[in-house]
């Protein structure tokens, strides 16, 4: 039984259990770990975007002081260390499988992007390894490079397996129906969109420590990963480092991920391999500048989209063509991002009868591109929400009103692009956002801004996302190489304290608190007697990690299942203790009672009895109180909401200030409103970063121009006003707690809201992200010039 509304239960703004260690500097991040006899690794990386490796001369480096080994791709291949893989198989529309090029952890014959590892130096100290790395001489034959996805298909071929640098040409939906809808439409809104390339930049750079234990012929990897079990699976089954039971992966405190720490990277493979070579632990700590060249980037789409409108502003069709840049190699989940996490969300919150989407994924000489907060869904939302906003302007209909006319109003709703939306109330979140954001008062505020010489604009984004990915059978049918369930094990100790082992991984989300809230409520135990264990393959049997806003919807559902079993077993124990029938035992607020009597046993008495086993025989009941569960979702979940951005633009400088932000989201059940609001704040900040500030810029030779925090503009405190955050609630019918997920919403909703607001302010749609002062200034000037010419 549950006790809703308890001070530490579901819905309570419980202060985080993990915070004491973080505010006192006692967190244990991977770089804080120092292994006895530890050595340091320094990678030698290609300075060229595309080059044949003719010779790697390691002699001078190997002779440097403190150097234990200088290893190359040739040795990696000789030791039969397997390639990194992409785990989601996409087929082209002609039925052919995607063209996955070999991705060795150290390049042996060819470097394909600036930053591609070509050798590694292992030294006694970091300084010695760094000094020696400078002595490695590589002869390169420089080849022509391409970085722009729009030009990739006509550029020099990068991989033998992929003519025209094309990985797949995929499609979804009904092309003929979409064409017909556009042909017969009253109005068609057309947009060319670039979804700018981003660098995730979790504040903690990646770190890997590989340690080989000769006595047991096994490895341990300490790693900044969001999913230690999948890392172990891939490094074992595909890379072939060691059998799974001989490889332990530990992900301790991890300082942010945002997707970039999902993937299996070359450096962790190399640290493991090198640790066996040198017979000592090998640690690699990424520098920030190195991270720009070594961590998977996000987004990078070039899109043409057409939205057809019929009578009264009704959307009658949508057609989208996207070229997605996957970089130089296919990263772990890269293929799924611009396909099943993108095109399937193109219906947005709208009842659209027909949709067709084509996606060409291409190789370029850039860092691999993979999931970054939102992963495909921000790109889809940007396409849909820009089209709707621009469509409303072209049709002379209020953008809120146009949205209302097209909202899906009954559920379940089958879209033309696979998804079945299970529950939602899009009118409610729009209505609440309009109130919370005082949209009625916007006209007055705009006039006040005008008096100060500023242009004020307002922009909406009524987004939807698919989270909690998803039934394993469904994703398997779409090409996923793994199942996407989650596991949980609930271990109750004799004294009644509880340990929950979860396959999810917390790297800022606060699982140690929210998961404990669930246990506290269900078992009626103090939250301080519950601890959450994650991030160690030797402790947790298996799990799928944390990404895609899945930990609440999927991970907590697994805990619910395990708790059900714990309660059932505890009732059996209580029945023996209270000499009653099992069916007569009621459990509430941590107390077992015989129905209709005053006979009861406290939680701690029952748990002790489960272990001392004095009240029952082994034939009657197994001693102990520990239960496990695997939970496979029945559907994706569909968080949705409305974000409203208000901006003030200085037309003389192009500087844009965000002066108001309202977010109203429907996340289903909210476990901890304080944490959920924090997730919204952070997501919005990343989305605003994409819209206003951030952009990975390559020059035509393939050099990453924005390769440090001096060149890549990270959002700062001064870029934001205080955010107004609210929620609406429709329960998710697909999981026992009714949770939809909240981790990515802000990053998905925000970019379109910002650009809709700026374009509203400046009166032209011709504005690409990031809308820097220079870009906005240029757009204002261009629009003024065109207006003058027209007059």
């Amino acid at each position, binding site marked *: 039984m549950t006790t809703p509304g308890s001070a530490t239960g579901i819905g309570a703004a419980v*202060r*985080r259990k*993990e*915070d*004491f*260690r*973080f*505010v*006192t*500097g*006692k*967190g*244990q*991040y991977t*770089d*804080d770990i*120092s292994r006895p006899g530890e050595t340091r690794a320094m990678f030698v990386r290609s300075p060229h975007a595309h080059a044949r490796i003719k010779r790697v001369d390691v002699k001078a480096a190997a002779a440097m002081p403190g150097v234990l080994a200088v290893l190359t791709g040739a040795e990696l291949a000789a030791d039969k260390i397997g390639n990194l893989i992409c785990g989601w198989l996409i087929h082209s529309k002609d039925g052919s499988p995607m063209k996955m090029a070999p991705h060795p952890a150290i390049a042996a014959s060819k470097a394909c992007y600036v930053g591609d590892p070509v050798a590694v130096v292992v030294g006694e100290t970091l*300084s010695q390894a760094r000094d020696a790395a400078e002595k490695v001489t590589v002869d390169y034959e420089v080849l022509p490079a391409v970085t722009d996805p729009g030009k990739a298909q006509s550029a020099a071929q990068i991989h033998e397996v992929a003519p025209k640098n094309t990985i797949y040409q995929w499609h979804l939906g009904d092309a003929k129906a979409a064409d017909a809808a556009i042909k017969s439409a009253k109005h068609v809104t057309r947009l060319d969109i670039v979804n700018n390339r981003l660098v995730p*930049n*979790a*504040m*903690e*750079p990646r770190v890997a420590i590989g340690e080989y234990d000769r006595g047991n012929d096994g490895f341990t990897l300490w790693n900044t990963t969001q999913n230690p079990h999948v890392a172990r699976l891939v490094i074992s089954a595909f890379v072939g480092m060691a059998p799974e039971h001989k490889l332990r992966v530990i992900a301790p*405190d*991890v*300082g*942010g991920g*945002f997707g970039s720490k999902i993937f299996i990277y070359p450096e962790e493979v190399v640290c493991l391999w090198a640790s066996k070579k040198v017979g000592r632990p090998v640690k690699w700590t990424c*520098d*920030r*500048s190195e991270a720009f060249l070594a961590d998977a980037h996000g987004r990078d789409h070039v899109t043409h989209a057409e939205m057809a409108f019929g009578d009264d502003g009704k959307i009658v069709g949508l057609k989208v063509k996207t070229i997605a840049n996957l970089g130089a190699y296919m990263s772990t989940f890269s293929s799924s991002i611009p396909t099943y996490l993108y095109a399937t969300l193109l219906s947005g919150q709208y009842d659209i009868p027909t949709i067709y989407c084509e996606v060409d994924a291409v190789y370029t000489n850039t860092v691999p591109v993979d999931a970054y907060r939102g992963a495909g869904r921000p790109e889809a939302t940007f396409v849909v929400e820009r089209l709707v906003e621009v469509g409303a302007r072209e049709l002379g209909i209020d953008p809120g009103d146009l949205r209302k006319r097209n909202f899906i109003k009954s559920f379940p709703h089958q879209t033309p692009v696979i998804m079945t939306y299970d529950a939602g109330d899009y009118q409610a979140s729009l209505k609440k956002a309009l109130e919370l954001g005082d949209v009625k008062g916007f006209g007055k505020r705009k006039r006040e801004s005008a008096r100060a010489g500023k242009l004020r604009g307002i922009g909406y984004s009524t987004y939807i996302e698919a989270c909690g990915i998803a039934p394993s059978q469904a994703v398997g049918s779409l090409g996923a190489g793994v199942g996407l369930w989650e596991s949980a094990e609930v271990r109750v100790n004799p004294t009644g304290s509880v340990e929950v082992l979860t396959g999810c991984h917390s*790297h*800022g*989300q*606060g699982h140690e608190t929210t998961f404990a809230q669930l246990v506290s409520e269900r078992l009626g135990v103090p939250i301080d007697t519950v601890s959450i264990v994650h991030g160690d393959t030797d402790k947790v049997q298996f799990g799928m990690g944390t990404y895609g806003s899945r930990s609440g919807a999927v991970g907590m559902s697994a805990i619910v299942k395990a708790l059900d079993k714990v309660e059932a077993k505890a009732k059996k124990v209580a029945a023996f203790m209270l000499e009653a029938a099992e069916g007569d035992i009621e459990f509430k607020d941590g107390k077992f009672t015989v129905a209709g009597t005053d006979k009861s046993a406290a939680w701690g008495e029952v748990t002790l009895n489960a272990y001392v086993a004095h009240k029952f025989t082994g034939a009657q009941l197994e001693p102990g109180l520990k239960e496990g569960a695997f939970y496979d979702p029945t559907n994706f979940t569909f968080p949705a909401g409305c974000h409203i951005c208000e901006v003030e633009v200085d037309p003389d400088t192009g500087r844009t200030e965000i002066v108001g932000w309202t977010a109203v989201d429907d996340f289903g059940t909210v476990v901890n409103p*304080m*944490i959920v*609001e*924090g997730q919204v*704040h*952070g*997501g*919005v*900040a*990343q989305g605003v970063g994409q819209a206003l500030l951030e952009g990975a810029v390559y020059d035509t030779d393939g050099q990453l121009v924005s390769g*440090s*925090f*001096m060149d890549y503009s*990270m*959002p*700062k*405190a*001064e870029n*934001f006003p*205080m*955010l107004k955050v609210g929620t609406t609630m429709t329960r998710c019918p697909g999981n026992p707690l009714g949770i939809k997920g909240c981790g990515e919403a*802000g990053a998905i909703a925000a970019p379109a809201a910002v650009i809709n607001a700026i374009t509203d302010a400046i009166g032209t749609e011709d504005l690409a992200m990031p809308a820097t002062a220079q870009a906005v200034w240029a757009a204002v000037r261009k629009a003024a010039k065109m207006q003058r010419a027209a007059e």
Partner: protein
Amino acid sequence: MPAVSMTVNGKAVTADVDPRTLLVQFLREHLRLTGTHVGCDTSQCGACVVHLNGIAVKSCTTLALQADGGSVLTIEGLAAPDGPLHPMQEAFREHHGLQCGYCTPGMVMTAVDMVYRLGNELDEHTIRQELDGNLCRCTGYHNIVKAIAAGAKAMKGTSKAA
């Protein structure tokens, strides 16, 4: 290798170091005070902020030798080992001013320095401007701003730590 001596969190320490050793390396690797973090290599992110002689510095851009003879306070020394949290630490916890926690030590040390310089009544605009040298990727700064304003007030009457 030259010798370096300083006081760290009230304790005298001496070591022989490679002259290029950064203060943050000295703290993390020699003294194993791993609460001070490194988030960048261009002095932008502020995860490494400590106090040197009572003033906030970026320990990734300070040589250990530059701190010779000085007094360093890190996140580990902000509150007494067995006592309550420092008011600024408590404010970050109370206002959910952290998520992954990686930028937090630098944020807290910057915030305390902000109070020393500007007083206990910090408005939103001032806090946001003063955080120019501290990056956070998780929180969107919203709750950090709230935490610092509250922590500043709560620091009234506290004396400057060593």
